[in-house]
């Protein structure tokens, strides 16, 4: 057991965390504007956009993975554009994984942010508009500082969810060691070759880290609620 632990390859964890960090950073910027817009929108088409955003929650990862794989491959105009014009190949490498993860984890970033924005008193935002501040300034100076628990939840859940993704990563990334083989894929392969000891170690580490992350979120949110005493 100890020998196994010493000889263990930690690169899959590093890839998982690198992927999750980059995905979370990209999604935070994109989703902040998207969620703010959705929360303020009164458009008839809002349910359509909300449904599209939520699709990755209900779709089987294999379906999502298949479409992303197809869209990024040389067979689709998007994939061809990236390869011919920008010189970037987006399948079976790390960049492709980032693009796929951004689609896969989108709802986990958008939804907490949107419900956070929607919980803000309408009057408070209107007071900012009346004070002469633009929508964007209101977003950064009034809306965001007052939904800290939602920001925290969105970031951490997105991060954790990206670390835990399996189906899409396997399909788009293809489990190439040191490039696209993440921790979750590694566990799958260890079980397949019946190396249960290593599988136990990998899985144990994943459980421990996930639990720790969630615990920190809940403690943070509890403290925030104490401090603010609710919105006034």
């Amino acid at each position: 057991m100890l020998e196994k632990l010493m000889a263990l390859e930690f690169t899959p964890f590093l890839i998982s965390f690198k992927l999750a960090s980059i995905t979370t950073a990209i999604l935070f910027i994109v989703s902040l504007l998207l969620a703010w817009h959705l929360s303020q929108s009164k458009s008839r088409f809002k349910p359509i956009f909300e449904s599209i955003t939520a699709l990755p929650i209900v779709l089987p990862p294999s379906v999502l993975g298949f479409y992303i794989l197809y869209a990024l491959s040389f067979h689709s105009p998007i994939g061809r554009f990236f390869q011919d014009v920008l010189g970037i190949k987006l399948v079976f490498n790390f960049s492709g994984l980032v693009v796929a993860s951004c689609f896969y984890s989108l709802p986990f970033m958008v939804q907490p942010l949107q419900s956070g924005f929607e919980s803000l008193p309408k009057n408070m935002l209107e007071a900012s508009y009346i004070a002469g501040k633009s929508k964007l300034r209101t977003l950064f100076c009034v809306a965001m500082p007052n939904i800290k628990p939602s920001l925290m939840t969105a970031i951490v859940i997105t991060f954790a969810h990206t670390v835990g993704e399996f189906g899409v990563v396997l399909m788009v990334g293809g489990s190439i060691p040191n490039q696209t083989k993440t921790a979750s894929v590694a566990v799958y392969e260890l079980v397949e070759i019946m190396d249960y000891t290593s599988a136990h170690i990998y899985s144990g580490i994943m459980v421990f880290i996930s639990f720790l992350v969630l615990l920190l979120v809940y403690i943070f949110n509890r403290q925030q609620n104490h401090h603010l005493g609710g919105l006034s």
Partner: protein
Amino acid sequence: MIEIDVRKELLGSMGKMELDVTLSIEGKSFVALSGESGSGKTTLLRILAGLESARGKIRVDDELWLDGTHCLPPQQRGIGFVFQDYALFPNMSVLENLLFVRKDKDLAKQLLELTELSELTSRKPATLSGGQKQRVSLCRAMMNRPTLLLMDEPLSALDPLMRTKLQHEILTLHKNFGTTTIMVSHDPSEIYRLSSRVVVLSQGKVIQDGDAKSVLLRTQGSQKFSFEGELLDIVKVDVIYIAIIAIGQQIVEVVLDESEANDLHVGDSVSIGTKAFAPMIQGLKDK
């Protein structure tokens, strides 16, 4: 000078109704907007603030705020708005709430001194009382030296003592800054104390418009006293009837004869007046 001529379809308490208001308001005046709930007061205020769309025209001095359906956004109107539920920014201190509107420390200091908030500048809104929050909200509304100050039942969530105190502060601010003010209010004493003109709305239309005294005094002809109340009960005692009526926070008894008793029904809104006697006024010792 503010000229208002707006129309908007509303869903009121009695189904669809059309808000149709034409008003002209002198600069530096203090107008109270009154009327039953659902009569369109708040909507009119929100249309003036640019928070809701409407058809028609709003002209403030030389600026057109609303022309047909073209609407100047609230950001460009230079108004102050005081919400019933304060709407302060919880992440900012009292001073920061004011400076967010405009970085003018001198004005902020002056306003906070006028409203006796100087000691609380670094406190967060969550730690303030209702009256203090509303004073901060009032100061914040004055920070961009508005051409028009709009207040939507600013004092209705406060207790009577705090209300009187804040009425004085609103009056002080109005005198100091001379801001044209429109305030939604239900409280006759508040309207009388603050406003120079009262506009009463019903079902989206102006039904009364005049100075506070002529609109609020309910006596007619030679009546000396007149109160409006709700008939709670009619009790038969021997040959007479006694009506029990709630007027404001008080309950009174009035003697009725049989024909009056037959005409009235429990739950009716009634007016009680007396004529031709000289009322005696005595101070109440226990107050």
